[in-house]
Structure formats: structure tokens, C-alpha cells
């Protein structure tokens, strides 16, 4: 909870920083505050204190997600430093990002449907604006508009679902709902189940699961690259956290209602984006589809065993770190161009070996090649699914990850094989080099020592 207070404080401070000469210290201050939030989350470990008459509960899962979200945001501030230095709206942008993080933390710790809704809205409102923050760009504006329309649509579903569930159980509290469900195994009116499915659809929009993913490629490729990086890591983590929290605690009792639907969604999410990504020539779009595809693996782990959240958390961590590495390189390679095709990466190894090596490692990790983090993430998901008898889905997932190898390697082959058509050598600043080094080191460390994360979830 203290972490949430600190982050909210940072958001308000960012708004006020326009007064006085605080602007140039702002980013540093926010990063320090987020680091403090990580420490505070760690201090609360194993307490599981409920706040505001059980509106929020900071149990270990919530704290782990809070820490992950804060750490990812710190790294994100590092990679997108120039997003704040160029242009005028420095304080506005910072505060929007920080408020998005507030929403994300609430989504990871809600214990009440109203808080879930609030968290999603706080997060989404900030993002609608950020997606359109490159005002002179047509695609950015389009992305913001599309995101807003689709987001409101999803929120509509979610709200309707919440209302129906409330109508049937008479409560917003997750534990009360769960208790009502256990007490009446057959006695709930049928609109309750409709409500559960509507909430499933609403959240499927938010985690961009197929067939509710259509907004994602357009929004991801239209937004400024740094915002895309934020959306595909921090926002994705928060959305998955909310999804897992809702369905593994509250609706676990009525698993038969949603499990078949979710299985279909998971298989579609594995197959369609991975196949579509093969045909993308725009790297940002390819990464967008890849990011949708990764949701499929997470859903697979969730279906196999909803209560084993460790695997999902580990997978999300590895995915986010690798994605941040990929987006950092993309951001540094793209310069001022709006559309980065694979040919931008031609001969990158000779132009700048640092960038080439970093994105190679990121791609290998996302493709699930050992001994990198992504391999262990996938391995744990597959092992968990096999253990629970979902061998058929694992076969599908293995095939889609082989397809993944194909499109990730298109970038790698371009960097080392194709001759460069855009010759300029890219110069890196020391801070960027350090960032890339940290991300490479994290990708290796998470892979070689997954127990660092997994031991958090062993009771």
C-alpha cells in the first residue's frame, strides 16, 4: 500500500513540477520514487494487509506485481529519456505515465470490482492521451482514437458484466462473491454466467487476446515507439495481473463456465498472431503481433493450473525484459522515421555491434532459445501444461513457437547477412550502452537463475 501512496504522490508532484524550476529534476525524482516503491513493496512482503474496507489487498502476488511494474517503469524511463527532453509537455507526459502506473498497481491489488474498474480506467485514460502524444503524426492520432474507441467498448462489456455479477451475488467484493458461489453451487440465476463471460470478454480486450486483439497492431505501430514499449510491457503486465487475480480467486469455483471458452481463446491467440507476424515487414507491427502471441502462452499456463501464478509471473518478467531490450534497440535505430521496416536492420552488426547483439539476444529470448530467459519461461509453461494433462495444447504451442523462430530470425538474418542500404553508423551515448548492457545481463540472469523469481511463489 505504501508503494501505491508513493507512486500517487509522484503523479501529483509531476503535475506541480511545472511551477518552480523543478522540471529538470523531475525524471530523476520519479525514478527515485519508483525505486522507493519497490523497496516498500518488498518490506510489506508476507503481510497481505487489506485496505479501505477490503477494497485493496496487498498480498504477495499483488506486491510482486507492484514491484515488477515499478522496476519495468524505471527501465522504461531510462530508455525513453529523450521522449521527455524533446517537445514541451514534459511534466504532463511524466504525470500521465506515473498515473498509468498507479492504475496498473490498483489492477494488481484490487479486491473489489469497483477498484478493478477504477484501475483499468486510470490506466487507460492516461494511455489514450499518450498514444496520441505525437500530435503532428497522423498514425499516432489514429492510434489514440482507435485505442479510445476499442477501450471504451471493452470497458462497456466489463461494466455490464460487473453489473450482472452484482445483480446475482449482491456484492462487489471478490471474496464475498466467491463465498456466495461456493454456498450456492447450482442456485445462481443464469445471467450471472453471462456476466462472467462478459467480464472475460472485457478483460480479453485488455490483454489483447484473439479475437479481441484487432486494436493492438494498429495502436502499437501508430503510437510513438517509447509508448509502445510501455504498452507492451507495463500495461500488459497489469492487464494480465488483473485477469489472473479475478479468475484465479473469484471465479475459480465456476471454472467450467469459462474454461472451455478460454481454451479456444488461448489456442486462437497462439496460432493467429504468430502466423500473422510472419507476414509483417514493419518491425513494430511484427513486435505487436509477437506480443499478442505471447499472451497465448500465458493463457496456456493459466488454463493448466489457475492457482500456480509463479509460472505466469516468471513468463511475464522474461517477456517484458526481452521486449524492453527489443524496443530500446528499435527506438535507437528508427531515428525520426515513422515506419521501420526490416530493411532498417540490414547490416546493423557492422554499423553498430552493440545494438545488433542486444536485439539478437532479445529475439533469441523471445523465440525461446536456451539458455536465455524466454526459454525457461516457455519451458515452465509447457511443463505445467503437460503435468495437468494439456498435451494437445502444448503441441500447438510448440509449433507456434517454431513459427516464432521464423519471424524473429528474419530480423537477425537481416542484421548479419543483408548488406546495409542505409549506411550511417549509429553512435550510442554511454547511458544507452549501459541500458543495453543491463537488459542483456537481466535476460541472461533471469534465464540462468529462475529460482530468484520462482522462490517468491513457493509457500
Amino acid at each position: 500500500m505504501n508503494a501505491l501512496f508513493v507512486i500517487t504522490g509522484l503523479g501529483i508532484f509531476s503535475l506541480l513540477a511545472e511551477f518552480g524550476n523543478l522540471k529538470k529534476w523531475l525524471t530523476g525524482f520519479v525514478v527515485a520514487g519508483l525505486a522507493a516503491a519497490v523497496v516498500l513493496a518488498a518490506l510489506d512482503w508476507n503481510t497481505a494487509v487489506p485496505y479501505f474496507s477490503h477494497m485493496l489487498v496487498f498480498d504477495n502476488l499483488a506486491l510482486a506485481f507492484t514491484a515488477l511494474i515499478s522496476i519495468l517503469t524505471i527501465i522504461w524511463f531510462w530508455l525513453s529519456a529523450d521522449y521527455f527532453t524533446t517537445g514541451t509537455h514534459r511534466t504532463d507526459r511524466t504525470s500521465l505515465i506515473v498515473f498509468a502506473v498507479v492504475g496498473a498497481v490498483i489492477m494488481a491489488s484490487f479486491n473489489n470490482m469497483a477498484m478493478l474498474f477504477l484501475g483499468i480506467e486510470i490506466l487507460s485514460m492516461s494511455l489514450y492521451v499518450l498514444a496520441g502524444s505525437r500530435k503532428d503524426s497522423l498514425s499516432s492520432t489514429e492510434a489514440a482514437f482507435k485505442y479510445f474507441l476499442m477501450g471504451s467498448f471493452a470497458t462497456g462489456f466489463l461494466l455490464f458484466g460487473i453489473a450482472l455479477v452484482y445483480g446475482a451475488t449482491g456484492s462487489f467484493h471478490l471474496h464475498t462473491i466467491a463465498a456466495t458461489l461456493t454456498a450456492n453451487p447450482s442456485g445462481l440465476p443464469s445471467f450471472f454466467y453471462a456476466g462472467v463471460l462478459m467480464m472475460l470478454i472485457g478483460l480479453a480486450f485488455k490483454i489483447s487476446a484473439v479475437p479481441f486483439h484487432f486494436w493492438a497492431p494498429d495502436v502499437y505501430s501508430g503510437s510513438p515507439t517509447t509508448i509502445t514499449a510501455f504498452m507492451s510491457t507495463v500495461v500488459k503486465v497489469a492487464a494480465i495481473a488483473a485477469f489472473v487475480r479475478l479468475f484465479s480467486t473469484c471465479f475459480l469455483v465456476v471454472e467450467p463456465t469459462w474454461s472451455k471458452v478460454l481454451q479456444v481463446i488461448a489456442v486462437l491467440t497462439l496460432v493467429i498472431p504468430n502466423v500473422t507476424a510472419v507476414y509483417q515487414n514493419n518491425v513494430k507491427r511484427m513486435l505487436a503481433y509477437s506480443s499478442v502471441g505471447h499472451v497465448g502462452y500465458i493463457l496456456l499456463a493459466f488454463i493448466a493450473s489457475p492457482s500456480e501464478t509463479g509460472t505466469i509471473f516468471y513468463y511475464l518478467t522474461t517477456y517484458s525484459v526481452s521486449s524492453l531490450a527489443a524496443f530500446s534497440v528499435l527506438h535507437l535505430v528508427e531515428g525520426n522515421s515513422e515506419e521501420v521496416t526490416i530493411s532498417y536492420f540490414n547490416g546493423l552488426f557492422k554499423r553498430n555491434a552493440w545494438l545488433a547483439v542486444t536485439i539478437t539476444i532479445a529475439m533469441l529470448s523471445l523465440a525461446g532459445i536456451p539458455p536465455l530467459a524466454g526459454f525457461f519461461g516457455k519451458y515452465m509453461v509447457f511443463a505445467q501444461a503437460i503435468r495437468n494433462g494439456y498435451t494437445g495444447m502444448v503441441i500447438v504451442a510448440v509449433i507456434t513457437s517454431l513459427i516464432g523462430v521464423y519471424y524473429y530470425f528474419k530480423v537477425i538474418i537481416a542484421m548479419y547477412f543483408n548488406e546495409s542500404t542505409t549506411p550511417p553508423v549509429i553512435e550510442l551515448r554511454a547511458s544507452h550502452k549501459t541500458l543495453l548492457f543491463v537488459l542483456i545481463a537481466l535476460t541472461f540472469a533471469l534465464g540462468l537463475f529462475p529460482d530468484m523469481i520462482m522462490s517468491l511463489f513457493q509457500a
Partner: protein
Amino acid sequence: MLTLLLIFFPLAAALLLFVFRPQNAKVVALIAALIELIISLVIVTQFDKTGAPQFSIDIPWITSLGLSLSVAIDGISLLLVLLTTVLVPFIILSSFSHTYEKPSTFYGLILTMQMALVGVFVARDGLLFYLFWEVALIPIYFICLIWGGEDRGRITFKFFVYTLAGSLFMLVGLVYLYFQTPGSHTFAIQALYEAGRSLSATEQSLLFWALFVAFAIKMPVFPFHTWQPDTYTVSPVQGTMLLSGIMLKMGIYGVIRWLIPVVPGGVAQWGMTAVIISVIGIIYASCIAIVQKDFKRLIAYSSIAHVGLISAGIFTLSAIGIQGAMIQMLSHGIIVFALFYIIEIIFDRTKTRTLSELGGIRNVAPILTTVFVITMLGSVALPFTSGFVGEFLLINAVFQYQAALGAIAGVTIILGAVYMLRTFQKSMSGETNNRTSSFVDLTGQEKLVLYPIVILIILIGVYPTPLLEISESAVNTLLHSITEVTASAN
């Protein structure tokens, strides 16, 4: 401790390379490879030939996955470790006359590859074995992709996907075995052996294929070989040497260590099939080798033929077959290294590998010709060369297993003589032409690489006993354990 040093020293050296200036990278890499050779020789001197797996280390690593850093060396491992540590310094030395772009990365990848290869040969944990197996693929892929020849993007990608798909089958097989182990599950080799042997016949044969496909692709055995000729041809020569000299031995080692003892029932059921497709591969590859125009491609096909014989010998499940395979792996490793190096020397001087454009090198380069003759005789298994010992044992084993198959496999020696002598004729004898007339004989550095290899070829041929003794007890233990299982099953 010595085993860990043996595995991770090359990795440390690879990272250290980036501290030095790029132009010094090759020297530093050579020194590192020589130190690694010394470490392996120290292990040889302390090795007890009669004993069980030695120098063992077992540290829990990822407990949530049941993975531990469990390594040990027995006779079979030791011979392959020796092959690796002996060949890598020569491979590095052979590159000295060539200047590669980004040398630190190039030599760093070679040393990383060495780490993974040694790791594969000493791993005693199923998942650890798989990890090293995959890690070995990454450096060689980049060596071929960055420094390879024309059309390498497509060819190396085929190579990568082919071997990756194969190893995914293996991973699925290993994970399946893992869930069969008792208690909280483990990947320890002994537990996997027991789990595998307790399975039903159907499960064993499914598992046999899951593992066999991975190993067969790596070796490669017909019909899983289609990636190999292109990849060997397009790779830079050091990459080809690593692939053919050492990496394909991973597949053979995998069969010996992770297939035969794990699913003896499956092997009993499908062993004959494996021997037959291996023998088909021998004849098929030899015939294709005869009509090759490109020197490097010819040796690539001859490599498929030789590996086919090794694979056939192993699946006879006899002591001479496996012992023959051990010695033939070493012999093939050094001979194929020397052949590819000679091809590179010829290519360097004449800018061609097409046999019909060569000729008459004998008249201008007698030393190179002599070296080539000895290597060639080793390759066609003439007595008193290393090739003879291995092929003799292997053909003998196949013959005892099934006389007709033995006879067919024996044809490999004749076919081998045909394509190698044809090669000699086309390249070395005849009249010199404008490409070969100004051919310079071996330089000092090239002699430094080739003379020791030639000596090794003859030495192993004349006196193979010490090497055979190293692996003897390990091979016997292996065969003993599986005959016990099949005996108790009957």
C-alpha cells in the same frame, strides 16, 4: 573442480577476448585453447581407466525445474573431450593466415562453442545435456551466418530450424521421462535410465523415435541429412571443421549415452531399422560423393557415409561396434579436419574448389601432396592409418550382426577409395594449368597444423590400444547394464 574448469574456462576466455585489441584476438584464443588442452591432459593423467564416472560434481541449480549442474567424466566422455580440446587449438591455428572481420567475436564464438561441446560430453543431467546441446548450436549458427559464403542466410536458417526442431523432439522426450521419475522428479541420468526402462514397449518405441530424430539430424544420418551438404559448403572453413570434426559427434555421443541406455526396449525393437537406414545412407552418400564437382561438397558427402557406418556399428549393440565407433569418431574428426584444411589451402591459392579446374598440384607442391595422400589413405581406411582401426571394428560388428548388411556396409571402403582416388587424380596429378602452375607449397604455419595431424593419423593407426583402453570399461558397463535389462525382461 577440474571438470567445471574444463567446461567454463573456454567461456571465461571468450569473454576475456573482448578486453584485448581485436588484432590480438587470435593469439589470445590460441593460448586459451592450449590451456584448455593442458587441463584435459591433466584429467587424462589422473583418470582411472577401470573406474566408474570420475571427477563428478553435482550442484543443485534450478530446483524448481529439477535441474542440477551434474557432470562427470567416464571413458566415453573423456575420448570426446580429448577430441574437442585437441582439435580446437588446431582449428584456431588454421585460421591464422586468414583475416576475419570482427575477430574478437569470431574467436569468442569458437571458444563458446567449445564450452558447449565439452558440456554436452560431460553432462549427467538430462536438462543440462539439452541446454548445452542447444547452446552449441547458437555460436556455430552465427559463425556460419556472419562469415559464411553466398546465400548463407537461407542455408544457415534451414540448418538452424532443422536442428532446433529435432532437439525439440528430444526435449519433449526428456520432459516425458522426467515426469516418470519417482517422487518430486529429477533429471539425474540414473533416474532417467530407470524411468525409461520401466516404460511399456509402445512408450519406449515412441521415446526412441523422439530422441533418435534429434540425434540423427545432428549426425546426420540419411534421410535427415539434407541440411548438411549446403551448410558445410557455405560455412567458413573453421565452421565446417567445428561442425564435421566435433559437432556431429554430439549426435553419436547422444545415441550412446542418452538413447541406448534410456530405452533399451525401444532400441531392441528399432535397432535393426536404424542399422538399415544407416547402411542405406552409407551407400547413398558414397554414390553422391563420387559425382561431386565441388571438393568441399564431396568431403561433406563422404562425411555422411562415414557417420552412417559409425551409427550402424553402434546399433549392433556389441562391444566391438561401440569401441569401433569411439575410435572412428576420433579418427574421422582429425581426418576431416585435415581434409577441409587442405581444401582451404588449395582454395586460398587457386580461388576455386571445382575439381575439374584443378590438377597438377603434385608437380608444384610435393609436401602438400604427401600430406594429402596420407590423409586420404586414412580416410579410405588403409591399414596402419587411424581410419583402418575404426572401420575394421565397425564393419566387423555389422557383419557379425547381420552378414548381408555387413557385406553392403563393407562396400563403403571400395566406394570411398573410388571417390577419394578420383579426387586425387583430378586435383593433384595430371598437368598443371594456369591456376595451379604458380601454386606455392605449404608454409611454415600450415605445416605446423598439418604435420601433427598426419603424425596422429599414423600413430593411432599403428598403436590404438591406449585410446581403446580409455573407453573400454565404460563401454562394457554400458552394454552390461542393457543386457541385464533385456535378460530380466525375457
